[in-house]
């Protein structure tokens, strides 16, 4: 049972480049989330999904896109990278229902220069 996996672990992008951060969970969780973590700050929610085919914006969605074609996968797309998107990105998932516990991936450290 791998839990939540994220690839890549590290990435350096040039301004204007695009990339996709991959997230996969094998726990059959309906809910999935993308967060960014900036130094000295808490987690900011970028996008979330309550199930395959359903996504919604979080607190800081600008500059990002997501899709959820399967229960397992929830990729995050950066179309035109900007220095302000330098951050650590975490994917998380949880079961529907009363537990509310989120399971996190190990993160992707992204630098845009």
């Amino acid at each position, binding site marked *: 049972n791998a839990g*939540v996996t994220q690839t890549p672990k590290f990435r350096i992008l040039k301004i204007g480049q695009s990339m996709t951060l991959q997230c996969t969970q094998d726990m059959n969780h309906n*809910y999935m989330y993308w967060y960014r973590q900036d130094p*000295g*700050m*808490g*987690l*900011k*929610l970028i996008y*979330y999904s*309550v199930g395959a085919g359903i996504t*919604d914006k*979080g607190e800081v969605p600008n500059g990002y896109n997501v899709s959820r074609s399967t229960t397992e996968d929830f990729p995050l797309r950066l179309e035109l990278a900007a220095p302000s998107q330098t951050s650590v990105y*975490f994917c*998380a998932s949880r079961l529907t229902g*009363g537990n*509310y*516990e*989120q*399971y*996190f*991936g*190990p*993160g992707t450290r992204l630098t845009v220069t």
Partner: protein
Amino acid sequence: AQSVAQPEDQVNVAEGNPLTVKCTYSVSGNPYLFWYVQYPNRGLQFLLKYITGDNLVKGSYGFEAEFNKSQTSFHLKKPSALVSDSALYFCAVRDMKDSNYQLIWGAGTKLIIKP
């Protein structure tokens, strides 16, 4: 507005001493409260939660947290700190206005346990 505050950026404790990491919240209604821990270069891990019931909640790695409704606090505690407890700790509260139960996160407190 709903919010979570962790008033200390950093807490330093000697190994073997009790530790407290503070969290206060502001939400409407009865809160659902959480503590997560982040070790260096790792994702966050769930420690414990309060939803209802006893005000003292026990969690992983010997941690516990006390829910205090009158003080709107949910402080994390451990009777005897270990060097391995050194990490970043996040408090979170369920957004009571969101039907999908998003979490509102504190900024985190760095806990340093010195030998």
